[in-house]
């Protein structure tokens, strides 16, 4: 990658302050920003501003709390983390930590923290700042805090050394660290009203990253501007000066605006839009091969007919995977072969049951159950707005009709679904779920989905052997042994048909051709590393 300035060399543009850029720039944006004081003529649309369409507006910009995709995407550019990824690689690279060592049987992590990083507010980042940032997350105890539950204590050894002690060995721990953005302690202290500055950080950013929040007009747009002093520098000589995220909850206007060039990047939800967009020579439609994301239908193992394993197997044998993936999604979804993506280490699992549509096997499975002739009704809840989940419901309905099983479909808001899923009694018999792991590790899927106390154990699965294996895997240092454990878990939960593993949805990005420097990273779906990007020949 052609990088103008890297590491701690202050970029040459650093002397141009943000205000100066904004007031000297001839762009409409600059005029508008400066225009808060002195309105001038409206200029042309800014050529170095990236305009992104977003739906589901972030709730807050607090790095300790926000977990939704768009919010994370902004936070990723505003805050730095101890470790990070670059380009399309899923390998973790040093970031705020130059390097780290693991000792004390994998329970102690010692980080060598950079001494050349400044926050956008001008204060210096050191090991203590990192400690305070992590402690703040633990104190607030919301959002991403659950991933720090394994931490025992965090110690600042000296200005450049940070030590984290774990309660027990957790091999993927380092993977979780790219979730924790570090805010400026000075800013947090200055705005702490006994709330850890939560109120202030809700609509301000105070990080060391390349793009900081400037203005957030709720319901309209979120404007971030370049932090020229950002220590990692920028890939292009003409980096993005500002990024506007427009709140557009409806998908069709996003597509219309992308086609007319009012958006540079759009979120398009339907694969049926792809052919027309591919024909448009001004656009790039980029389907990405690596998928660390799966789409499941979870079956309630604690309630009604689906508590019977045979019924679950009958459903798994009758679902029309082919119609779903090939016809409904036009091949923009790859088959799922196990409970975690095949592309992860150990993802190719020997001797695993491979469900496909087979009405005969489905009938046999049902015949073994307490309801050999069917004649019952199952509830299916889906998140309103997610059309693939609706399709699943309707495909289930038509497939299970053959087994004399009725499906009642109901749409709910996601928070309500979460609510229903709190207890097996209130949960439906079948519920769809998209999962992308927070970490590049099978534990990110298995612990989450099949551990009896997992956050998304939506099958209410409770298998002592599986729980034991999950914890053994977390502690196992030998990679081959760990993989063997994960494969055994996979075989058990698949045999038990806890979930129907429908597919791995292909990520498709849609943007104008003038957007350059974007590389897909399967761990950063729909997130942009803005410092790597620029615009080339964007017409005004």
């Amino acid at each position, binding site marked *: 990658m052609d990088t103008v300035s890297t590491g701690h060399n202050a970029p040459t543009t650093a002397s141009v302050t943000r205000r100066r850029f904004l007031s000297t720039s001839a762009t409409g944006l600059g005029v508008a920003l400066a225009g808060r004081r002195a309105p001038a003529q409206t200029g042309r649309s800014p050529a170095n501003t990236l305009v992104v369409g977003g739906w589901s507006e972030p709730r807050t910009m607090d790095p300790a709390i926000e977990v939704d995709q768009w919010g994370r995407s902004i936070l990723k550019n505003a805050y730095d983390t101890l470790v990070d990824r670059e380009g399309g690689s899923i390998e973790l690279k040093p970031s705020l930590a130059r390097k780290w060592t693991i000792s004390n049987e994998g329970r102690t992590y010692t980080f060598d923290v950079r001494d050349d990083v400044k926050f956008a507010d001008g204060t210096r980042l050191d090991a203590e700042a990192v400690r305070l940032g992590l402690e703040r997350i633990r104190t607030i105890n919301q959002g991403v805090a659950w991933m720090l539950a394994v931490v025992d204590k965090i110690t600042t050894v000296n200005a450049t050394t940070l030590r984290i002690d774990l309660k027990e060995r957790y091999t993927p721990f380092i993977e979780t660290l790219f979730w924790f953005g570090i805010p400026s302690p000075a800013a947090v202290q200055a705005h702490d009203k006994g709330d850890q500055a939560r109120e202030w950080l809700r609509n301000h950013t105070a990080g060391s990253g390349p793009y900081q929040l400037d203005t957030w007009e709720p319901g309209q747009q979120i404007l971030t501007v370049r932090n020229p002093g950002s220590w990692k520098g920028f890939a292009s000589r003409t980096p993005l000066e500002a990024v506007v995220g427009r709140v557009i909850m*409806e*998908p*069709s206007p996003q*597509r*219309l605006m992308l086609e007319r060039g009012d958006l540079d990047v759009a979120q398009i*939800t*339907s694969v*049926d*839009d792809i*052919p*027309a967009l591919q024909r448009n020579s001004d656009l790039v439609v980029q389907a990405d091969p690596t998928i660390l994301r799966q789409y499941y239908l979870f079956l309630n193992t604690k309630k009604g007919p689906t508590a019977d394993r045979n019924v679950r197997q009958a459903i798994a044998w009758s679902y029309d995977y082919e*119609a779903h993936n090939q*016809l*409904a999604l036009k091949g923009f979804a790859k088959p799922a072969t196990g409970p975690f993506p095949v592309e992860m280490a150990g993802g190719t699992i020997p001797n695993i049951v491979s469900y496909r549509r087979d009405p005969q096997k489905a009938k046999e499975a049902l015949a073994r159950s307490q309801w050999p002739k069917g004649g019952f009704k199952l509830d299916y809840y889906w998140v*309103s*707005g997610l*059309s693939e989940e*609706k*399709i699943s*419901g*309707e*495909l289930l*309905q*038509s497939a299970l009709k053959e087994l004399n099983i009725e499906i009642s*479909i*109901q*749409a*709910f808001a996601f928070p309500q679904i979460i609510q229903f899923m709190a207890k097996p009694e209130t949960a439906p018999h079948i519920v769809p779920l998209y999962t992308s792991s927070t970490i590049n590790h099978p534990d990110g899927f298995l612990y989450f989905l099949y551990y009896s106390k997992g956050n998304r154990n939506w099958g209410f699965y409770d298998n002592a052997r599986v729980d034991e294996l999950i914890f053994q895997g977390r502690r196992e240092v030998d990679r081959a042994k760990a993989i063997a454990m994960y494969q055994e878990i996979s075989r058990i939960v698949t045999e038990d048909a806890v979930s129907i593993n429908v597919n791995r949805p292909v990520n498709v990005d849609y943007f104008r051709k003038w957007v350059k420097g974007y590389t897909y990273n399967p761990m950063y779906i729909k997130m942009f590393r803005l410092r790597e990007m620029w615009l080339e020949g964007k017409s005004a």
Partner: protein
Amino acid sequence: MSGTRRAWSQLVRNPTGLAGTVLLAGFVVLAVFADFIAPHDPLRIDLRTKFVPPGPGHLFGTDDLGRDVLSRIIHGTRVSLTAGVVVVLIAGSIGVTVGTVCGYVEGMLDEIVMRLGDMFLAFPTLVLGMAVVAALGPGLANAMIAVGVVWWPGYARLVRGIVLSAKHVAYVEAARAAGAARGRVMFRHVLPNCVGPLIVKATIDYGFAILVTAGLSFIGLGAQAPTPEWGAMVAAGRLFLIDQWWYATFPGLFIFITVLAFGLFGDAVRDAVDPRLRV
């Protein structure tokens, strides 16, 4: 009754009224005989015929699951017409009961209940409807209940006003003086006055009931998949509006025509029954 016949002949002599009546009759036929008229099974999924454009095989094309849009619209007529009936019946029966009692007893109870009604009127239908549906859980039945519950005060006001004025009309007072029981007076002498205005209000509201229910379905709070409801079809089809325009366009057009037909019909009924009526 010659009054009814006169009203009827007036209704059909009015060209817009006639148009509305004919359209409505058509919709009723579609709803009743949907099973025979619809060329395909409205629920049958066949992904191999996904998004077939309008043509001889599928007059209005097919949807994202390969279902025939025309057949779904025809069956949707049933859903929408039912929704209108249910909303008007719920609102009407609550409203008539409350309005009659209030108009009859007057006093404190009347004052309290009518103020309560004003409160309901003050709420925007869709916002309160959204809240009610969120509480009851999404679904067509709940959406209909929500709209009905929000609309009752309109009927209560209408009936109460008529009851109040009818109470003091000579023949009612005469009946009371002759010793007729309260309830009997109410039913035999007072309520019949309300029938005309109620019919007018109900026909005018009917179309809007369909519109509001479709609106709730559009937000995802009304009819659930795979029910062929027009609003839900527009909602699902809007994602494909640009390339597969037929999916959202035809159901939207049918909502429009139905509501328009009810509007024309309602207007004409009003003119025929009593042109000075303000409902």
